[in-house]
């Protein structure tokens, strides 16, 4: 069962999940906020693609870029309108806010567009396959892997070699200290949300590439994946998020092979049991970070 096809599929799934997890962790690292509205950013990207492909003659590459831009703008907007005012109050207030935004965006899509699924026309390349060493591999999967490599490289360059990136990493380690050193909090947080939104936008292209349609509730499954991947990798660590994404893909693919047929449909439940176990025994995830205060005993 574990052949080239399995490996490429798992790698492509892992790439997708890694990008997904990165977008969630980059905000969590700074604000301690588990952003429940993250999945809805993917939905926003999806609807922008639907609207542009259905009602405009724009070439596909432009549509894709605009979808990513929409994800970023939506993310920045939620930060500005909702998270900024409650940021100083309490963690619970922030979490409930993100849950409220998630509901808000979902139902806004329901209200403005339609409760029914909308088909998104994707370019040829998403449907065709190529033969590699005797197995047929969908182009989509190769594209996912390439995009992930490019995105991660760009992000690494940004984080390591620009002032903003260094400030962001410093803030993820110790936000209070970073602010004391004169880094403006709002800039750092906005940047984190922008990157998070860009990630969601990129993921939306490939996520919707799998189903070719978009619904108001499309954000829930990727959100759950991102949660698990982040916890596996370590919530405070960007490298951890990437590792977590790949580990998630490997575990879920293997569970699909190993579990007896009657239990395969429970595999999400198994994933979340793993999450609980990791949080209990190794709350810092696979990749250790500086400090962890979540556990009290």
């Amino acid at each position, binding site marked *: 069962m574990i052949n080239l096809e399995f490996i490429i599929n798992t790698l492509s799934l892992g790439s997708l999940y890694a990008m997904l997890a990165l977008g969630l962790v980059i905000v969590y690292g700074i604000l301690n906020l588990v952003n429940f509205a993250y999945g809805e950013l993917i939905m926003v990207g999806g609807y922008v693609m639907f609207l542009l492909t259905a009602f405009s003659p724009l070439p596909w590459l432009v549509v894709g870029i605009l979808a990513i831009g929409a994800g970023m703008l939506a993310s920045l907007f939620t930060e500005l309108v909702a998270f900024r005012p*409650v940021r100083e109050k309490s963690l619970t207030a922030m979490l*409930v806010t993100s849950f409220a935004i998630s*509901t*808000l965006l979902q139902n806004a899509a329901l209200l403005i567009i339609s409760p029914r699924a909308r088909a998104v026309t994707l370019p040829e390349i998403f449907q065709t396959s190529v033969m590699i060493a005797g197995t047929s591999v969908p182009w989509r999967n190769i594209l996912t892997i390439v995009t992930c490599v490019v995105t991660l490289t760009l992000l690494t360059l940004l984080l390591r070699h620009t002032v903003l990136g260094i400030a962001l990493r410093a803030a993820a380690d110790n936000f209070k200290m970073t602010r004391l050193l004169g880094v403006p909090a709002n800039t750092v947080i906005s940047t984190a949300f922008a990157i998070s939104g860009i990630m969601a936008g990129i993921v939306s292209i490939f996520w919707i590439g799998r189903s070719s349609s978009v619904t108001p509730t499309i954000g829930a499954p990727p959100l759950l994946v991102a949660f698990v991947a982040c916890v596996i990798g370590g919530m405070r660590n960007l490298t951890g998020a990437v590792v977590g994404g790949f580990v998630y893909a490997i575990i879920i693919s293997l569970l699909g092979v190993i579990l007896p047929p009657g239990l395969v449909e429970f595999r999400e439940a198994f994933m979340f049991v793993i*999450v609980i176990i990791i949080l*209990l025994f190794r*709350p810092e995830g696979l990749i250790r970070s500086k400090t962890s*205060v*979540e556990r009290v005993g």
Partner: protein
Amino acid sequence: MKLAARLKSLNTPLTLVAGILIIALFTQLAGISLLTRIVTVMFVSLMVVLGLQLYMGNSGILNFAHVGFMGIGAYTAVLLSMTPQAKLLTNSGLYPVLAPLHLPFLPSILIGALVAAALAAIIGYPLMRLSDAAAVITSFAVLVIINVVMLHWDPVTNGPRTLFGVDYRTTLWMSVIFAMFTIVAVYLFKESRVGLRLRASRDDRYAAASIGINMMVMRWLAFVASAFVAGMGGGLWAHFITSFSPYSFYLSETFVVLAMLVIGGPSSVSGAVVGTLVVTATREALRAIENQINILQIFPQGFFGFTEVVLSIVLILILVYRPTGIMGNHELHWPRLRRKTDVVELNEPKA
């Protein structure tokens, strides 16, 4: 003298119970069936929200799993109270062991609540040591796990399909009685030793630990009690709605229950009551508008989601401008019974 003192200490719950009774009487006298339905559901929701307040309000930890326990209570109660024929009619693949079980209504929902509490006791024991974000993610994970199991355990829950044929048992007065008892119980819990210790640990976990409070045990007790109340609420709800599916106990229901508690004020029992009343009234008004617009066909593709959009905006506004909810940290009091000098309020946190 003793009686007076006792009454005084029960001032808040009695005031709230009086409010509930007035609403129930009014509904009874009005005799409008739609209003009766709305108010009955409101009292059942009130129970679930009070259960959430019991844990969240006293421990300060956001809990997403609550509605999952409501689902467990609902399914357990229904599997006990339905007749064997009705069970096999709605779910022909039911485990043969479960079919002949048949109990009256009250024992059924009591057992449903006990099963929810027992599961919470097992799941909750290791989870109580987690705080902050980790606690939130794990509670969310518990909700997802419960939901996945309910969706796919066909021989028990009928899978994602609707389970129908439940007897209608939860009348207006049945829900009133349960809501009244829950108010008193949740209030007494808050003022009990366990409640007080738990609130101390919420306000400062290190200070509380330093005076010998075992925070994990306190949290665990509250978590189990809260699941018990949720399970009972679920059983009541199931016997009101009479047909339901696992989708009834997932994110949208969680949102409503959380909105009720947070808008009202999570740290007081009065907050839970006020929040449930306010949110129910708002939702029903909005839903009436939504339906009217759909009937008039102003929008060709339908007009859905308006209620939730407005409700989530209200929730965000509350969190921005009054993060402690409508009631803040205060409880309602019946004004006459309270002299100016007698109670020095135990200060609750400003957070």
